[in-house]
């Protein structure tokens, strides 16, 4: 027989206390993992906000005061045209006139033209928000020393104008209008494809499929695996199938549109639709699964056919869940970048997308392009675009949560 020796009372107490201390230390360590996550999230968000606002040192090539006596904002349309005529070379003026007659342009456009072509603001240096707030005098001194002619102004790179102006090659005038509209179109096309197909597949798998049959097991496993395929692979699929093989359709050539190739909103939207399809199917399956069997049995009991029971009883009850899942799929589609680079998002689009068969750009692509540039002012507008994107995502997710809370039923 084995004889156990037990520690004396004092040793035992010390031993237990030690074990509890270890447990407590580990609990702190576990908690610190969550704290690290919180710190990272805050750092990320603060970093974005930090970049999107702050002081800007800039310089005019030509002082506004020298080209007109009155402040530019107060000039009438004719006076603005006169200023343009007086300060631009004949060739440049004629070229502008040829693009769109100057008399036909709005005052705002003419004003922007003067700023862009004559005054030519040059951004010398941008300062992040927190430095701008806390080291204002240091920045002022630095600017005075480095750029004696420069003006210093606090600028919010995120502004109403940023949302409504199209792309520009100059960060000071660039906006996300075309990208925002492109994102909307893209999500619309993607969900128009993924929602019917995804819900159909989910209904089949939950309501009709015989779980034991080989084909149905393969379909189910396959959907789970598709959800794990890297998004860039979907991009390659989109490039080969939608951009190239189906070019006649996706370029709009079938419908008499001839000025594009296959790199259109249609290709991108369908690629994104396929990418979010597994997500829609899995969410819809969960929603349908949550409808209790008694509902179906009651429908069968009063003589409904299978489809009648699904259409009139199962689907209406599963609808909030399906919608929540689709909104989450849409927010995935709106943030996805890599497949769109491959399908061929254009980086410089100044015209609003009018149909699915146009060249396109979307918010994440703009963020990528601007972040990859070396100049600070492009990083600033990238930060502003990130805020727009995050607010958009927040709206989507908040809608999903509201829907879920409003319509969710407990059986």
């Amino acid at each position, binding site marked *: 027989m084995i004889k156990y020796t037990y520690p004396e009372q004092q040793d035992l107490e010390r031993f237990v206390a030690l*074990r509890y201390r270890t*447990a407590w230390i580990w*609990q702190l*360590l*576990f908690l*610190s*993992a*969550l704290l*690290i*996550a*919180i710190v990272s*999230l805050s*750092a*990320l968000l603060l*970093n*974005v906000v930090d*970049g999107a606002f702050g002081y800007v040192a800039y310089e005019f090539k030509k002082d506004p005061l020298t080209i007109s006596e009155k402040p530019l904002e107060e000039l009438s349309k004719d006076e603005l045209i006169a200023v343009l005529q007086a300060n631009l070379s004949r060739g440049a003026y004629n070229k502008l006139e040829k693009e769109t007659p100057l008399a036909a342009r709005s005052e705002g456009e003419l004003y922007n033209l003067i700023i862009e072509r004559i005054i030519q603001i040059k951004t010398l240096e941008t300062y992040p928000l927190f430095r701008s707030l806390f080291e204002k005098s240091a920045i002022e001194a630095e600017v005075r020393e480095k750029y004696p002619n420069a003006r210093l102004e606090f600028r919010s790179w995120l502004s109403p104008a940023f949302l409504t102006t199209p792309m520009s090659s100059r960060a000071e005038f660039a906006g996300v209008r075309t990208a925002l509209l492109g994102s909307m179109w893209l999500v619309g096309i993607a969900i128009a494809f993924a929602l019917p*197909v995804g819900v*159909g*597949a989910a209904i*089949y*798998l939950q309501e*009709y499929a015989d779980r034991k049959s080989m084909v149905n097991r393969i*379909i189910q*496993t*396959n959907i789970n*695996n*598709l959800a*794990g*395929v*890297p*998004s*860039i*692979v*979907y*991009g*390659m*699929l989109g490039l*080969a*199938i939608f951009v*190239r093989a189906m070019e006649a359709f996706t370029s709009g050539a079938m419908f008499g549109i001839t000025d594009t190739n296959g790199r259109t909103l249609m290709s991108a939207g369908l690629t994104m639709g*396929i990418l979010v*399809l597994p997500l829609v*199917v899995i969410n819809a399956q969960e929603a349908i699964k949550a409808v209790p069997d008694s509902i179906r049995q009651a429908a069968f009991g009063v003589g409904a*056919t*299978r*489809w009648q029971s699904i259409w009139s009883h199962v689907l209406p009850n599963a609808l909030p869940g399906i919608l929540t899942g689709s909104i989450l799929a849409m*927010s995935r589609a*709106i*943030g996805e*970048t*890599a497949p769109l680079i*491959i399908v061929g998002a254009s980086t410089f689009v100044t015209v609003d997308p009018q149909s699915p068969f146009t060249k396109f750009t979307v918010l994440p692509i703009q*963020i*990528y392009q601007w*972040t*990859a540039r070396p100049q600070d002012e492009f*990083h600033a507008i990238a*930060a502003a675009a*990130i805020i727009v994107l995050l607010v958009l995502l927040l709206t989507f997710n908040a809608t999903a949560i509201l829907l879920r809370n409003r319509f969710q039923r407990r059986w």
Partner: protein
Amino acid sequence: MQAAAKQETVNTTFRPKILKRKLRLGESAIEAGLFIVGFLTIFVTVSIVIVLGDQALLFFLDPEVTLAEFFMSTKWVPAIGEFGIWALVSATLTTSAIAILVAVPLGLSAAIYLSEYASHRARAVLKPVLEILAGIPTVVYGYFALLFVTPLLRELIGSERIGVYNMLSAGLVMGIMILPLISSMSEDALSAVPNSLREAAYAMGATPFEASTQVVLPAALSGIGAAVIVGISRAVGETMIVAIASGATSEFTFNPLKAAETMTAHIARISGGDLPYGTVDYNSLFAIALMLFLVTLALNIVSQWIVTKFREQYE
């Protein structure tokens, strides 16, 4: 007697068999339609394999390329016909390894805290943080890596030792990106362990730490293993963070302080330009994508296999 006979005739006229036999064309059409839609998802996988395989085959059939070179060489310079996948794989391995080293300990700790220690109120505050982290688009993480983490690292390590583009920064941020994935999958696995096990451990005098690491954790190990593998697969397939932060030079190196291009970043960079269809460069992208697809598919299948094979059943 007569009544019984009548009963019988009634029964025969209402035999449910007749109802069953009735063909409902509309119903069958709907079922067939739904089956086709479900089958479409298989068609997606099949077309991925066909598209990638077809173009990759064209790549390998090209006289400039040999299979041996592709799988053995460590140089990837398409301009002079050098196609050695290891130059890209090395960067993928390095960034993914860093990401996993960050995400697994942190994600697992977070999951243990949330499932074993946190009160209801603490969970209500802490869980959304992870959910927000999971919902942030990867391009935003790329911005964060290049414009926050990299300058920070350059300050800490010294800007002469670490470049503007480096794999360390990309890997660290990728770790933060997959942290919520690993923690939520692990937490599901931990929560699925029945309470009776914990209660038994406490009854034996275990501390909360001993109960969670020596009783609950081993019981949930299959789910946690699956989470780690899904995390690896996500890291291998991640594109935007590495495309922005880890540089654009395909170099064979495992040094995290250096810039190197991963498989995904290479595909993104090359296809971002206007590459003419049908060239070796163009086809090489499909060969890389096929490798990525196969690797991630294998990882996902292994993860599902682990869950079903090693799951502890407590019922």
